[in-house]
């Protein structure tokens, strides 16, 4: 596995995707249980919904970028692996 610049960019997007979707899951579970996240207190209900939506869109964007870069790398023949 060659670790070129593109590999690190893909790694960054995949990590961000993973962390964002985990954060979204944790936050929505906290809000479901009517708890406040210790260092991020949100009182407004509508703001919670919008923030969940933003996090979901952001993680979808990260996944899209990761996929596009993977496809680009495969087309260029830089990476022989499936990813």
């Amino acid at each position, binding site marked *: *596995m060659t670790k070129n610049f593109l590999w690190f960019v*893909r790694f960054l997007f*995949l990590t961000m*995707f993973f962390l964002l*979707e*985990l954060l*979204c*899951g944790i936050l929505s*579970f906290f809000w*479901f249980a009517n708890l406040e996240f210790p260092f991020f207190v949100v009182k407004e209900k509508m703001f919670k919904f919008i923030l969940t939506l933003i996090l979901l869109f952001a993680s979808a964007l990260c996944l899209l970028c990761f996929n596009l870069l993977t496809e680009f790398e495969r087309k260029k023949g830089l990476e022989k692996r499936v990813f």
Partner: protein
Amino acid sequence: MKLSFGLTLKPHEKYVLRRKFTHISGVTYVFCIWFFTELFGFSLAVMLLVAIVMFMMSIYVAYNFLKFLGIHVKSLGKLWKTFGSPEFLNGEEYYWDVCWLGLFLSISIVLSLLVADVRIAYVMACTVILGDGFAGVVGTIAGKHRIPINPKKTFEGHISGFLVAFVVSYMLTQSFLMSLIGTGVGMIVEALPSKISDNATVPISTTLVLIFLKFVFGGFL
């Protein structure tokens, strides 16, 4: 698991069937929308559903993340294969289909929460889970007439997928127009050739069209 039913299927068709049956098993999501809404109300139900989907998805993402780093967890790999999610199938890649489905189901259900209409969530979930699932199963088993713009899909599959999704969403929403338009739009989008997974395009298009119609026609839907 042997899937023959007296039919002669090619190996990749068996995989497609398995994938689609797994898809249809997502009907538990529709049940959960109803059950949690009855239990906690729509807004808390949405939060709980988003949390559950994200946590389940994170197992799959963690598996692929490790694979990206060169660490193969074989037991999880076998599990995905059992549920019909091979890495490559008939020249196509299915790595992130699960994630697209999870993400866009969640995005769509939060959007339907923003307009406070659980019926949109029902129609969207029925279209992507039952419509897509039955279209795939019937198309693989009995599909003969290919759709000209997308030769991978068949008319038989799409019509049956549309009918199943429409009937179930009508039973849940009691709104003829909403079910008809929502499932119709979803199945048309499903038939279009797209570079992005249909698990992403179908729920979001169905939801956006229904939200738009709700604003235009209001109580008429």
